[in-house]
């Protein structure tokens, strides 16, 4: 199975005077899990709703293999969607909620029972959805997304509200869906939530693209070296004289501007024996926060 390529091109959406999404462009390829990250209010949901034809963009386009969602001949069989955990009638059972959608898409009821079983709602499916826990609603949303066995999945905060066992389950599930060749786009406001699941990330802030690429590419952005010696002051002087930025910390020095190799050579030249030399990567969370700026809620 090969899922559709999701393409967002120069997408802008204004609500009155507020610009929710500002000239945003990115691409989501099949076969990998792509994380769509940004703090609350960054424009993630508006972007996804524009992609799904629920919100009309002010300008720009959002397509699946070049087609707008509304033009898809069989939308539920092409794209599976889980948007928010509350879009159901509280008096209708989870199973009936899915049957209503299945009827609209010409999907048989037998498939409804299949996906309910899949997401672990086999027994709860007959109960009124108003009594579901947040985790069960998330599972019902995921069942809705899987109804048409679609090649592309667009999931808005699917992990939010799941218990640890559910989180582990959905992580494995998303990876296996991507491994089958599907396009999987998962939004989250927490990097740590999807860090172990996603292969690529698209990070937005204030409606604009902040980063697009692999997680590794994000991580290697900024680095420093943690170094220490018995003669800490002498080492700091030597490194400072060579032009490095040195910060004195409790257990040594944080040096930036030089690779570990260069620092070792400088220490040798100054005849100061080192007792610690560790290249450190700035934490992913820090990089993420740096990218999304002040509004970052983590």
């Amino acid at each position, binding site marked *: 199975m090969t899922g559709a390529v999701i393409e967002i091109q120069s997408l802008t959406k204004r609500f009155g005077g507020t610009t929710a999404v500002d000239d945003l462009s990115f691409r989501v390829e099949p076969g990998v899990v792509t994380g769509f990250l940004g703090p609350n209010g960054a424009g993630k*949901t508006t972007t996804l709703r524009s992609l799904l034809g*629920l919100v009309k963009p002010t300008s720009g386009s959002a397509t699946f293999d070049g087609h707008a969602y*509304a033009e898809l001949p069989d939308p539920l069989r092409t794209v599976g969607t889980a948007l928010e955990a509350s*879009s159901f009638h*509280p008096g209708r059972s989870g199973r009936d909620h899915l049957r*209503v*959608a299945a009827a*609209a*898409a010409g999907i048989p009821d037998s498939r409804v029972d299949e996906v309910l079983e899949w997401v672990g709602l086999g027994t709860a499916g007959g109960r009124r959805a108003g009594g579901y826990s947040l985790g069960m609603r998330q599972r019902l949303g995921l069942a809705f997304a899987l109804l048409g066995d679609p090649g592309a999945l667009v999931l808005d905060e699917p992990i939010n509200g799941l218990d640890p066992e559910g989180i582990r389950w959905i992580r494995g599930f998303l990876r296996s869906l991507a491994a089958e060749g599907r396009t999987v786009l998962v939004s989250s406001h927490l990097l740590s939530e999807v860090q172990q699941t996603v292969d690529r990330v698209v990070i937005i802030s204030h409606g604009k693209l902040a980063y697009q690429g692999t997680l590794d590419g994000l991580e290697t952005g900024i680095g420093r070296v943690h170094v220490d010696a018995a003669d800490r002051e002498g080492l700091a002087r030597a490194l400072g004289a060579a032009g490095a930025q040195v910060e004195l910390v409790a257990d040594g020095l944080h040096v930036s501007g030089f690779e570990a190799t260069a620092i070792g050579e400088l220490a040798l030249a100054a005849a100061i024996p080192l007792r610690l030399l560790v290249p450190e990567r700035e934490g992913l969370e820090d990089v993420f926060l740096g990218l999304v700026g002040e509004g970052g809620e983590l």
Partner: protein
Amino acid sequence: MLRSLRSEMLKITTTRSWWVLALILFGWVGFNASVIGALGGVIVDQSGGALDALSIPSLAYSVVTAVGYVFPLLFGALASTGEFRHQTLTPTFLATPRRNVVLAGKVGAGFFWGVVYGVVGLVAAVGLGALVMQLTGVDPELGSSDTWALIARALLAMALWAVVGVGLGVLMPNQVAVIVVVLAFTQFLEPLLRTAAAFWEWTAAIGKFLPGAATDALVGSSIYSLISGSAADALEWWQGGLVLGGYAALFLIIGGLTTWRRDVT
């Protein structure tokens, strides 16, 4: 289109509000038809000939629409506004992104359930009304073709009212507001307007286009026409049907071009 209709039908049968409304409709219509059946003969006797032309059975049977039309109206309005209220427009439009197709499905399902309400109401009105008339010695006229024509036209009226409700709900997505408007208009404002309109000729000419008056014209008899005395210059039955259909079309078109097209956030 057929898929959308099936989906809309399922939406109705998988929640409880339709049979709660049907139950109240049955009780209320049955009660009114019985009262008219029981007292109608006595009133005609005492009127000293003034009301001799009045058909007690058609008066009793037409309570289906005269007091019952508010039920398919509410039903249709709830079917539309419920989608906004419970945010089910999201899954609905995800499954059927062409919004006009969804609306057409709603109209179709609304029409069908309007007929169902018509059947429920008629079972109450004709069943209980005829029984009471039989007991009080009034001919229930069940063999008359006029009676059956009235029954058929009442079914059509109920179906049209459900579609008017669907349109009204799209026009006014706020569920609480639409319930208030429906109840205030049907139970208070319209009876008042119809009575007031009957005073002058020129107001009567406008008054017959009120939805309730159009319904009475369509069905052919009603307790309200009797009270306001406007039965003489009422619309033809088919004109009444067209007026009702016109209200439905007007609401659906305006709603379909405004709230139905809005962003779903």
